[in-house]
């Protein structure tokens, strides 16, 4: 055994260690701060973004695409618009920051983080057609999905909630729906009655995420329980969720209401990239794999009844790609440095 050190020597060793470790920690923080200031400077070759008015009403000339801009520069994380037929053209920035966004019929839903004194809090903000805040609601965790009904009357959002347990691996989701006409809020869809395989079902591990609306009463979503995921049809008035099909995540209903685009967890794939983009025919429950061969972790958007738009990881965080919904064709990149798109017309 080594002889015991003198008390003074011990304190000295500790002090030296505190100074050294403090220097390493400070260096790491400064390095990160330096990197994050760089994201506020425009990069050469990045899409051009200029401030200007952004409206959720269709412009005279036709459709537009509104999304969260991920190109580095002063307009990082702001909602921008581009003409739908010129997606890689110059972007007009509204100055409104959102992590997640969707819009339909002049109503927008924007999930954003707010700097708190001790930690960040999250809010779901309902926007009017000029992106002005109508009302906002506190959210319990990290925003992940958002949708608006075709009429613009209902808005839905999903956040991840986690406890602070030691090495917390305990995650759950929380999905809410609000009626923008009377602000009637269904804060937690887990309180709806689940009807699984035709029978009432209850469990402590029910999680709901990825709402997509058919009309002002019917919606579809994912319900996870017992380690499996299910497509459910939700009824807002009856407060029920009825299972329809297994292994469906982040459903997105086609404009004609006949098909669901979704993430399928394909057996045999690696744990890092378990999902592929599929389309489900609601009448026959036939599954069709799209031509996109990579892992898709997004709630797809229907460009029209034949084409899907979705995000994949890219140099600036995410790029937007399209692929035909019938399983043919090829995936194509249509936009760089963009996420959470919507055709708000």
């Amino acid at each position, binding site marked *: 055994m080594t002889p015991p050190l003198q008390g003074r020597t011990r304190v000295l060793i500790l002090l030296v260690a505190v100074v050294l470790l403090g220097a390493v920690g400070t260096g790491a923080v400064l390095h990160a701060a330096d990197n994050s200031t760089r994201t506020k400077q425009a990069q050469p070759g990045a899409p051009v973004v200029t401030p200007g008015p952004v409206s959720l009403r269709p412009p005279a000339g036709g459709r537009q695409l509104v999304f969260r801009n991920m190109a580095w520069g002063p307009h990082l994380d702001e909602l921008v618009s581009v003409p739908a037929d010129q997606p890689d053209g110059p972007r007009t920035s509204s100055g409104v920051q959102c992590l997640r966004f969707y819009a339909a019929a002049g109503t927008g839903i924007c999930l954003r983080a707010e700097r708190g004194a001790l930690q960040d*809090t999250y809010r779901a903000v309902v926007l009017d057609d000029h992106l002005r805040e109508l009302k906002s609601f506190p959210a319990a965790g990290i925003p992940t999905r958002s949708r608006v009904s075709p009429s613009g009357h209902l808005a839905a959002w999903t956040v991840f909630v986690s406890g602070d347990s030691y090495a917390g691996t305990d995650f759950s989701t929380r999905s809410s729906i609000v009626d923008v006409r009377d602000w009637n809020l269904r804060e937690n869809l887990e309180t709806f009655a689940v009807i699984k395989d035709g029978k009432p079902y209850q469990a402590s591990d029910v999680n709901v995420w990825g709402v997509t609306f058919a009309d002002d009463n019917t919606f579809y979503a994912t319900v996870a329980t017992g380690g499996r995921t299910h497509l459910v049809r939700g009824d807002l008035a009856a407060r029920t969720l009825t299972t329809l099909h297994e292994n469906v995540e982040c459903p997105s209903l086609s404009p004609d209401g006949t098909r669901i685009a979704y993430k399928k967890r394909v057996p045999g794939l690696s744990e890092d990239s378990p999902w592929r983009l599929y389309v489900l025919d609601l009448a026959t429950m036939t599954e069709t794999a799209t031509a996109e061969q990579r892992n898709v972790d997004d709630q797809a958007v229907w460009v029209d009844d034949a084409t899907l738009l979705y995000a994949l990881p890219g140099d600036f965080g995410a790029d937007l790609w399209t692929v035909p919904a019938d399983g043919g064709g090829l995936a194509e990149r249509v936009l760089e440095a963009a996420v959470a798109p919507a055709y708000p017309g």
Partner: protein
Amino acid sequence: MYVAESRSSKAPVDPALRPGRRAAAVPGTVLALGTVSLVTDISSEMVSAVLPLYLLTGLGLSPLGFGLLDGIQNGFSALVRLAGGHLADRRGADGASRHKAVAVAGYGLSALCKPLLLLVHTVPLIGAVIAVDRTGKGLRTAPRDAMISLATEPAHRGRAFGVHRAMDTAGALIGPLAAFLVLRLAGGPLLADGGQRHGYDAVFTVSACVAVLGVLVLLLFVPNRQPGETATATAPRLRDGLALLRLPGLRRLTFCAVLLGLTTVSDSFLYLLVQRRLGLATDLFPLLPLGTAAGFLLLAVPLGALADRLGRRRLFLAGHGALLLAYGLLLSPLGGLPAVVCVLVLHGAFYASTDGVLAAAAADAVPAEQRGAGLALVGTGQALARFGCSLAFGALWSAVGGTAALGWSAAALAGCVLAAAFVLRDAPRDTASGTPIAGTPTVGTPTAPGASGTAPPSDSEVPS
């Protein structure tokens, strides 16, 4: 004089002196170990607090299904804890136990995991790193508690454990704040969904530095040999670990810890029920664990001191009574914020009067040379029972619904508290004053267990 607990550094305590009177009852070693736990918990909770955010926005991964390994983890963790306790009791060449060495290995393993997070970027690997981190935690728990008990006068063990647990919990509360402060200074949290990780890398680096500091404090300020250690030449063998259950005091305590653990609904279920039954605003949900921790922090020392005065087993039972009250409140028609606060205070009180108090009670029932294994046995029994309760409660919830499941659990807990009170009814008073005569230690020899009601051997505080 004290038989087995003769302390090299202090004169024996005058039996006439009532415990709980003097503030000087907490030795420096306990404060040092408390500091190690505080610093280590800051480091661990920094990572825990940002992990979901990191997975989602830093790596663009979905965290759902991440907790699937928890079951395997729990079983493995329990085994590691037993191994840690046994290894720590083994003697080195100098005849001293290896409590400190095993604790250093455990803390060191966890410290190594923090910089690894800078290198791994996939869910399976991150899961593996967290598993190693927990292995370190399992390894160090028993030797750490053994050192606390051996460094402290038996009469003041409840308070000493209370001080340690309060410091530990303080670290758990500071951790998330430290993490968000670092993210803030680093210009984050960076809200890009993928691609930009530097804010989190700063958190992991700072967390690693803090963890190294914890290991250093342990190395520098915790002595290799505790005053309560017996300089015996016989190292306990593995089968002596099983013979521990022949000690009637420890057997009863383990039995009761398991029995009560089987009806202790896990925290996550409890918070879920708080939210559903008491109508809590959604955005307050993440604050529920902090409420429990705050209650635990404030009550750990006073309730530990109370345990020294009233008897540790009694307080252990009373703590489960507090949990029963919390269940009752959840089942009652009451609601709103006051009810939520009451449930959290009761939940905190439950931890404050069972967590460290159980360790103190177990220390009374095990001879010094097998302290690590004995504490591991009780702790592991309780942990496995609680895990079993989680599985059963989940199944019960599916069968009859959350409220009914809680009702059944409350009834079962009430029954188990009564049963445990009966089992521990004639246990000797474990305070410094008024203890019965102890027998000589018969550890490792296959003697028949003493009749019900005989005193725990060897290291109960026996003026002889």
